[in-house]
């Protein structure tokens, strides 16, 4: 999921970089997060993108997770995890597929339920 164009996109919730949320987030649509969240995020069946300015402190559960910013917490993705080159992830990753760009930082365990790493 690339950075959204200006203006709202249907079917995509967005948290801008000036927003700080403390608490649990859950939803049934895709989420683009470029702000700060302290708390768990649950988007089963949907995708989460942590933008380059995004900072998450808490566990994440979604269908797909793309990280360009900072994430401290475990990631559980039923489909796929992508760590872009600017990603800084501290926590364990559990998924079916994982893609890690050169330059991404991961401190934690990688558990693949189906060996299909790109």
């Amino acid at each position: 999921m690339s950075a959204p164009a200006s203006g709202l996109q249907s079917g995509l919730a967005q948290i801008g970089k000036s927003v700080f949320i403390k608490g649990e987030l859950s939803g049934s649509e895709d989420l683009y997060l470029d702000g700060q969240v302290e708390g768990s995020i649950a988007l089963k069946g949907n995708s989460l993108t942590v933008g380059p300015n995004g900072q998450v402190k808490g566990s994440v559960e979604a269908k797909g997770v793309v990280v360009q910013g900072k994430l401290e917490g475990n990631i559980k993705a039923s489909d796929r995890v992508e760590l872009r080159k600017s990603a800084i992830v501290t926590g364990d990753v559990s998924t079916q597929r994982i893609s890690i760009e050169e330059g991404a930082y991961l401190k934690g365990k990688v558990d693949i339920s189906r060996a299909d790493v790109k």
Partner: protein
Amino acid sequence: MSSVSQNFMKLFRGSSGAETIPAQGSEKLTRRSSGLGELARTWQNAEGLCILDLGSTSATNIRHFTERGHRIYSEDLLTASTDPELLIKDEKGVAALDSRKFLADNLVYPAAHFDVVLCWNLPDYLDESLVKPVVGRLWSVLKPGGMLLAFFHTRDAGPDAPCHRFHIVGADTLEMKKIVLSREARRGTGAGQTTKSDGFQLQRVFNNRHIENLFHDFASIKFFLARDNIREMLVVR
């Protein structure tokens, strides 16, 4: 804990077949690794191994192990050692790194957790104040019978030997890529200053005696000599 001097086995294999083949137009080199080959034979038929990779995040290494059904932990200790909050002054007022804080924040795992630890060239480039504490922690997180692979430069490598990242591309083949730091980082207490650097600086050259002392709590140690000024070592807890 048995002494290494009583029951270690030392095997010197001359010219273990390490050769560097420069990849065209890039800073990547490949080398054959006897130590990795020996490890690969060990885990060839094993399932569900627990592996700790102490180099920088490597998608290649993660893929290599997860495709074989193993679990891999990634922890870049060299980058972690550049945390400016680790800087303290010792009793003599000399700048050093706080090894207690370092071990409180890093290598935090249950005892006897890992089957394999891939140290790569970490001891050669890690700050002096952290080397022994880190090796002690690695002993405790390795399972009895677990193995640790480490590389050490020989004196012929010279003081400017670049720090490489090692990616597993075959059963006994590694791709080496020079580590380039993207931001200011400490080069170790020897430098005593934070400078813009393009990589980590070789901190010391171990001789065999130093290595044996450092890993004296391990049950056995095996050395593999190579042509490229790197000495490989495989220890068993």
